């Protein structure tokens, strides 16, 4: 069943009805979009929200006529100002694309051509639909860059994409999308790859731009909070259907459909810290196998345990002739040897969850890898219960098994050529935590403890979903019976409902096993939910640290304040803040 379409405004700019886009698959057709209807009025912002595989991006691509073979639009209508777009020849579509409807993609590096200057790319985009002279091209290009708040547009117009940061590149992509004053812009996860502070800037600028230009906007995202902060109306998608749609405030504060409720309740920002999410979804009943022996140097809960003392990590600069030439030609300075982590002291108490928060390039991951003994610090030391975590010498190696790591991307962190049983038992066997005879049972116990079928031991990683893989990765780390676990963005690449399950699992296992966690994340709401203490990092240094509540309530440092302010927030369901009633 499909949800009823949006309010039938007579002046709808875009009217999509009963759209079905299918892709042939190994086991029959994959109905990526299966009967979606909505409309967008001029100047309106429609947010399309959904988890991966919900069909939200395919909907966007269908509108702009970019469905690749063998996918096809099976039925339905896409009317732009009353004109049917489905079935138009490519020639006609090209006249519409970029001029009347334009699109902004998630990855600005992939969307811009790396070998052409920004100015050239803008010129090509202009010349696609207009005949204008070189002088006017330059003026228009500079104006377009200024419009998206790129400073010194006269100079930057000759830059190449690699000379811009990710946020700047996305601004350029937006500038190109807005060149011809299109009537509709489709943005597909445009801020997902960006840091929160950049995301906040782009959100507010985008909002101002579309209202200035009167452009309608379709904002596709998996993130309810960003959609809430930009969209007038919201459509929630799940497996090819729109399950709920309506005014943004109404949908996000008084959701009607169960799925929307699940999505909202899965967000840690809507629960009290430490609480299990989604009524303890995904928490297994089975207890993890008991630890064989507890080392005698384990300190009491709450006492200093892992001590990181003044660590510095320097990565060598590119010093070759080629690197120098490359930067010389581009007119930029070569990056000097910079300290990814520049003198950080952290004390992790036993049983504590310490959040490490920072934007990309803050050095938080490098710090985590040093804390876990994966890479050696250039100087400084990491000690667990007084013992160094890595051996010294020219080729330092990790010497303790008591610190383990959970990585961000569960598709990259499992060796695809090993069966799950081997992945889980390899470390414990190598370190004689278990004998060969005990291994199968040990593996089964751990699979059950992370909420997976114990019979999965013979499968390969590719047979599992992202959330299941992350459970396996957690089991692998905990099967080593560690005291400290470094979690490097363990939920960043997961859908919200899966994220909630993994957070629940971490909360439960942590308290059962008395683990101390270092939780590295860019997501402030997840950190607030899980962490006792928080460290804010910027450019390799700690700018502020303290108890989680204190930092969130009363940030002292300017950067922390900015970071917290940039955090996209969902509207709270507050009495008196009800939306105007209207046809849903």
């Amino acid at each position, binding site marked *: 069943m499909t949800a009823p379409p949006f309010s039938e405004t007579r002046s709808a700019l875009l009217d999509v009805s009963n759209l079905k886009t299918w892709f042939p698959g190994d086991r029959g057709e994959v109905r990526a979009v299966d009967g979606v209807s909505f409309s967008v009025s001029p100047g309106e912002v429609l947010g399309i929200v959904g988890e991966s595989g919900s069909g939200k991006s395919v909907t966007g691509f269908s509108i702009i006529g970019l469905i690749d073979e063998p996918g096809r639009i099976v039925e339905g209508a896409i009317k732009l100002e009353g004109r049917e777009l489905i079935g138009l020849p490519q020639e006609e579509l090209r006249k519409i694309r970029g001029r009347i409807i334009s699109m902004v993609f998630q990855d600005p590096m992939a969307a811009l051509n790396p070998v052409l200057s920004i100015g050239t790319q803008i010129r090509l985009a202009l010349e696609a639909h207009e005949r204008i002279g070189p002088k006017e091209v330059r003026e228009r290009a500079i104006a377009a860059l200024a419009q998206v708040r790129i400073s010194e547009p006269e100079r930057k117009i000759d830059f190449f994409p690699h000379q811009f940061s990710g946020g700047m590149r996305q601004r350029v992509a937006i500038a190109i999308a807005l060149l011809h004053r299109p009537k509709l812009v489709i943005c597909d996860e445009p801020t997902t790859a960006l840091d929160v502070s950049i995301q906040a800037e782009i959100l507010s600028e985008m909002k101002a731009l579309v209202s200035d230009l009167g452009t309608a906007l379709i904002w596709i995202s998996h993130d309810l909070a960003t959609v809430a902060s930009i969209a007038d109306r919201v459509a929630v998608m799940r497996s090819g259907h729109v399950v709920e749609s309506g005014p943004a405030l109404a949908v996000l504060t008084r959701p009607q459909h169960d799925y929307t409720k699940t999505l909202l309740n899965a967000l840690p920002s809507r629960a009290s810290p430490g609480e299990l999410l989604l009524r303890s979804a995904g928490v297994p009943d089975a207890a993890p196998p008991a630890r064989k022996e507890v080392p005698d140097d384990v300190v009491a809960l709450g006492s200093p345990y892992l001590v990181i003392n003044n660590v510095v990590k320097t990565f060598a600069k590119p010093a070759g002739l080629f690197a120098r030439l490359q930067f010389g030609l581009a007119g930029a300075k070569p990056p000097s040897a910079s300290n990814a982590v520049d003198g950080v002291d952290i004390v992790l108490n036993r049983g504590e969850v310490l959040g490490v928060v920072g934007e990309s390039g803050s050095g938080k991951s490098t710090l985590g890898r040093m804390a876990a*003994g*994966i890479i050696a610090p250039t100087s400084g030391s990491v000690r667990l219960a007084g013992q160094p975590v890595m051996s010294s010498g020219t080729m330092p*190696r990790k*010497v303790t098994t008591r610190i383990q790591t959970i990585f961000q991307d569960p598709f*990259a962190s499992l060796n695809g050529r090993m069966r799950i049983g081997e992945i889980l038992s*390899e470390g414990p066997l190598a370190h004689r935590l278990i004998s060969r005879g005990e291994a199968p049972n040990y593996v089964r116990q751990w699979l059950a403890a992370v909420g997976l079928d114990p019979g999965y031991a013979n499968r390969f990683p590719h047979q599992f979903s992202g959330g299941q893989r992350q459970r396996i990765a957690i089991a692998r*780390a905990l099967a080593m019976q560690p005291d400290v676990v470094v979690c490097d963005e363990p939920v960043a690449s997961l859908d919200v409902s899966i994220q909630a399950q993994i957070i629940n699992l971490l909360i439960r296992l942590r308290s059962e096993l008395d683990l101390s966690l270092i939780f590295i994340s860019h997501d402030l709401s997840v950190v607030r939910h899980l962490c006792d203490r928080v460290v804010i990092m910027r450019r390799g240094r700690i700018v502020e640290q303290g108890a989680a509540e204190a930092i969130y309530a009363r940030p002292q440092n300017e950067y922390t304040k900015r970071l917290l302010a940039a955090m996209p927030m969902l509207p709270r369901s507050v009495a008196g803040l009800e939306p105007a009633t209207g046809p849903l």
Partner: protein
Amino acid sequence: MSDTPFSRFLGDFRKNKVATGAAIVVALIVVLAVIAPLVTPQNPYDLAHLVLRDARRPPGYVGSAGYTHWLGTDSQGRDLLSAIIYGLRISLQMGVIAGAVAFALGALVGCAAAYVGGRVESLAMRLVDLQLSFPAILLAFVMAALFGQGRSQLILALIFAQYAYFARTAHGAAAAERQKDYVEAALSIPLSPWRVVFKHMLPNSLPPLIVVATVQIASAISLEATLSFLGVGLPPSEPSLGMLIANGFQYLLSGRYWISIYPGLALILFIVSLNLVGDQIRDQLNPRLHR
């Protein structure tokens, strides 16, 4: 388990008819080469069996021993069909042994260099680059000239000329794998360097190495044939395909084409088939062609 990566690989392979045909040809040649003493009417290396009266006879000639020489005989009265099958046997031996040792050596050097990193890596890979800058045939020539004639010397020369290709490929793949999270996860446990290299980095670096292996075995075989043709390969008492071609070369203009042409055709068929199989494996293992 029917859904292993290997079974899916085989299923995909069968979809390409040409490659499947080539794989069958390779398999046939391998079987023929292995059971050569059982199927050939004559042992071409046993000089006592050679009858000089039967030398340089055309295809179809019934020799003095009573059986038909389907592909004719060479200048010493060898049955050419037998000589070709034995020649393929030698070629295969040389190619596979040299290929396997070069594979193992190169994979070890490449993966270890990628794991260790730093100056050791740079030094090892520059040495490999240096060696790659010489043509393989030149290296093999020098080695063959230094060590003299004979099977083991020739294998040594082939290994030396070829391991650098494997090392280069293994290093490229392993250096990419080294950066991946699952290797960091193995280091985080921590597993021993040997285990990380052999159990984690090497298996994941195998696809490009397998592709190089099929091409390099083919190239080892043609290198051996070339060296034998030029007279620095195997001794004349054990003619490989290269030497058969060389021996027949002088009779080519006198119309006795079969002494050179048939061994040449056999060599071409074998190498082309190997390359077709290698191409298909490469296409299947190329991640860019999937998703």
